[in-house]
């Protein structure tokens, strides 16, 4: 039958009961990382330190003093979070070989709770992209490309076409983290979400992707894309696991002045039995141009699910959503231009050999260090920030952002608890198809359903919902009120239970199948 999800009786319990040791668990994961290397999910695998951390966890379990539910749990971290002693590259030539002297707050928190850091996951260069195809280490492949489900349903267009060309993208920019979780190489991964970078790949890879409220989780140590929108994201195989991770990461950080002062109390998610008091909003603007009929149908089916269970389902309007892409483009590029100014080759990172002058060294360093996408955004951002353009673009975009945010405030004030939307316009595109369009066009298309809420800083979560006709995952998104993660995830958990999203059937994993992988496949550690 279908494995149980979200149970503390899974891996964590197995560790506690000694049915599996942290070292065994870590070794299995490392082996799996090796056998799924072709996915290109990891940039760096920190085998040595991971095994050491696992050993330490094992000692704690032996003493009967584990640090908590995360002790000994293998995790992966997107390669735009600083990790002391482990390379942090942002998938860019600029930071290739860069070893940070400090841990991001979120990384430190995970380590402090005994998590085992397996490695750093692949992404679009500096998280700029929606496919995880534009990093210097090459594209990430969606594990579902190699699933039985996909292989059975996708018919090669012609016999001459190489099987190699059928693989689909993970979405992005946290594609490495999504692929890592989806292919069982780790139990949870950190991503980052600015315009959908956690939820989008989560949807394409069939995992849970949570973007918490802005200010709930520290950004200290996350190499920024857009400081005013970046949120560390959580990728897991169940909603319960996402709640566990959230509980271990959330809270004020004196090193990040934009985190909220209020104490955060970790929570366990209740099993919702009655949804009749819930009001679910269906924003009509999310029926966006390009939304596949398949997803539209799934979306309305989900709405019906709530309605049939007694919830109030209402159509709502977020009229300024349609401006979110342009608004985001201006604000994002402006902050990118500013944030990237520090990469001059002096203190760290790539430095070119140009020696004619300091200016020529800066210029060559930055040309060699950044890809076209990054350079393009720097260029437009600086243009928007020019004195004569500032009011026209930046200030206007800020005002539009306010309007977009106000739309949400109004809807929630009208009594709606949670918004239900699609996460992506379609299922994952084959790589060859995806790269036909340039990064900017793709980002503009793909982020359309995940940007507006970012402008408002709201929490949102992707829940894997069903498989498409091609056998690829499709997810739906729940958007909640600010700092109402518990309500958001409770509803998401109820929905997760209703839809019974199938487990990926990976040939690679099958080969290694055993007790441990039974636990792993059962998805949850909590």
């Amino acid at each position, binding site marked *: 039958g279908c494995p149980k999800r979200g149970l503390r009786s899974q891996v964590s319990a197995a560790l506690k009961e000694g049915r599996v040791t942290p070292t065994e668990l870590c070794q299995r994961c490392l082996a799996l990382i090796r056998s799924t290397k072709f996915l290109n999910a990891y940039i760096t695998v920190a085998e040595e330190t991971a095994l050491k951390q696992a050993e330490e966890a094992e000692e704690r379990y032996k003493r009967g003093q584990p640090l908590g539910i995360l002790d000994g749990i293998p995790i992966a971290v997107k390669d735009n979070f600083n990790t002391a002693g482990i390379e942090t590259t942002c998938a860019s030539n600029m930071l290739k070989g860069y070893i940070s002297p400090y841990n991001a707050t979120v990384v430190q928190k995970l380590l402090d709770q005994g998590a085992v850091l397996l490695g750093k996951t692949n992404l679009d260069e500096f998280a700029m992209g929606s496919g995880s195809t534009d990093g210097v280490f090459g594209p990430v492949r969606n594990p579902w490309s190699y699933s039985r489900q996909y292989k059975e349903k996708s018919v090669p267009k012609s016999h001459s076409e190489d099987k190699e060309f059928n693989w689909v993208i993970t979405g992005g920019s946290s594609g490495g983290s999504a692929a890592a979780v989806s292919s069982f190489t780790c139990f949870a991964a950190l991503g980052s979400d600015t315009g959908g970078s956690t939820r989008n790949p989560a949807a394409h890879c069939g995992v849970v992707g949570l973007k918490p409220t802005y200010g709930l989780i520290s950004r200290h140590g996350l190499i920024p894309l857009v*400081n005013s929108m970046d949120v560390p994201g959580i990728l897991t195989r169940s909603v319960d696991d996402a709640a566990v991770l959230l509980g271990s990461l959330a809270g004020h950080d004196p090193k990040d002045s934009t985190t909220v002062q209020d104490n955060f109390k970790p929570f366990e998610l209740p099993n919702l039995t009655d949804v009749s008091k819930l009001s679910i909003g269906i924003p009509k603007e999310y029926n966006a141009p390009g939304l596949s009929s398949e997803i539209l149908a799934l979306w309305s089916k989900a709405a019906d699910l709530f309605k049939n269970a007694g919830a109030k389902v209402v159509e709502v309007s977020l009229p300024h959503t349609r401006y979110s892409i342009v608004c985001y483009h201006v604000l994002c590029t402006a902050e990118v231009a500013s944030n990237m100014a520090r990469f001059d080759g*002096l203190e*760290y990172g790539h430095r070119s050999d140009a020696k004619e002058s300091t200016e020529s060294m800066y210029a060559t360093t930055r040309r060699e260090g950044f890809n076209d996408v990054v350079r393009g955004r720097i260029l437009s951002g600086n243009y928007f920030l020019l004195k004569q353009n500032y009011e026209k673009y930046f200030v206007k975009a800020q005002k539009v952002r306010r309007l977009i945010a106000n739309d949400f405030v109004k809807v929630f004030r009208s009594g709606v608890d949670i918004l239900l939307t699609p996460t992506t316009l379609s299922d994952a595109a084959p790589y060859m198809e995806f790269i036909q369009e340039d990064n900017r066009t793709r980002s503009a298309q793909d982020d359309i359903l995940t940007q507006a809420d970012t402008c408002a800083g709201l929490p949102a979560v992707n829940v894997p919902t069903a498989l498409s006709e091609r056998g690829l995952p499709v997810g739906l998104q729940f958007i909640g009120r600010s700092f109402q993660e518990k309500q958001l995830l409770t509803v998401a958990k109820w929905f997760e239970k209703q839809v019974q999203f199938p487990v990926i059937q990976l040939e690679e994993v099958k080969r290694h199948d055993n007790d441990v992988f039974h636990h792993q496949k059962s998805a949850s550690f909590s």
Partner: protein
Amino acid sequence: MAARGCGGVWRRARQRGVAGPGSGPDPSPRGQRAVACNTRGGAVPAGKSGLAPWVPVVGLEIHAQISSNSKLFSGSQVQFAAPPNSLVSFFDASLPGTLPVLNRRCVEAAVMTGLALKCSINKKSLFDRKHYFYADLPAGYQITQQRVPIAVNGSLSYSLCIDSKMSQMVTKIVRIKQIQLEQDSGKSLHDDTRSQTLVDLNRAGVGLMEVVMEPDMCCGEEAAAAVRELQLILQTLGSSQAVMAEGQLRVDANVSVHRPGEPYGVRTEVKNINSLRFLAKAVDYEIRRQIEELENGGTILNETRAFDSKLGCTVPMRDKEGKQDYRFMPEPNLPPLILYDAKSLPANMNHQQVINIDWIHERLPDLPSVKREKLVEQYGILPEHSFTLLNEDGLAEFFESVVKQTQMEPKKVIGWILNDLLSYLKQYSLTVKESPVSSFLLADLLNLLEKKEISSTAAKQVLAELWKGEGKTPLEIVKEQKLELLQDQKELEQICQAVIDEQENEVIMMVPG
């Protein structure tokens, strides 16, 4: 004085103009200030053109390093002359992913300074990024307060002597446009022979208060006097050590000249000024240069110039020629800086987390102007003496301490302090604290003088002896050197007789003469 010499050019031009037909008195306050600046007088040869005089306009931008244990946005220590790059946090070096955390002490220092300069304190101020590429600016931008600074619309009154004898003082006011918090940059050292640049980030991120003074001044001496007063205020508050030689106080002067009634002329910015004397010199040189340039039919470029203290002139700075667009942007990593007063202070707020303007206001120390008034009132000394007392660090306290320990009138004590002690200190380049003669010893000496046990001449001899710092008391010195004044008539007669007896021959010779 060279500075006065420089000033002569515009003074003579203006005086001639003011006296000339058709040029009524300038109704603007600046005109009046210009006239006040004139009162030092002097020979006034005629200028070349027969036009109205020139009105110089001087505004100042002053960067004061905040006296704080740690930097504005990081926990790194602040220390002058530490080994290069020994005080650099990850944030200071702009390592990716680091974030600024505002230092409470720096905010308090800025609020104190704002209050002392009669500014209105903004209860909500904002931080911005100012972008430019420079080796000693690791992030590629400086965090500053461009849009809404912490304090605005203040004023500073300062005094200066209007004659060379330092006996007539005039008080003036310069408006303070704003005070903003911002980061200092690091330091670049250019090694031309090896064609490399060395960067020291110890100073990078140290908290600065930029004090912007409106162009209400008209000559170097006014500028120097205003900065001196600001320096005293900062030192009194403890918000900055404000030592110019150590770069804790850096002054940029904006200088322009125009004809009365006409709009301001094109201004230049003079940088690289590291003492008050050079400030006066640089401003006066620049005014003279601009007038000469204009009178010779030239134009003034809106440029940045550096003061060359060796040559005593300003020269264009090469590296800042191109017009910069700083691409200002709100700093997204810092929420607005919110300050409270007694009224707005939320009841349930943790007091460690908020800054209460009223609380700071109540605890402001006496400012130099108040201290001077008190000195004049309490001791009956001249106002100009009160200035000298405050200009030397610790001298007023020294004076008061002497006064307390002696019966001598304060009016007489001040002479000993300002004429004798101060000239010794100057001669040996010592601070008041380093003086080998303590206030106790000086009081002791003055008591001997006051009791007429020694003469004034002898007292000076004793002071010279005390200055050697050999640990003797004034009385011991007096006895050793037999400097007592004789009170006994008989004894005096005997001494005289003895002298006469010894020198009988000379006496005999003198008698017929």
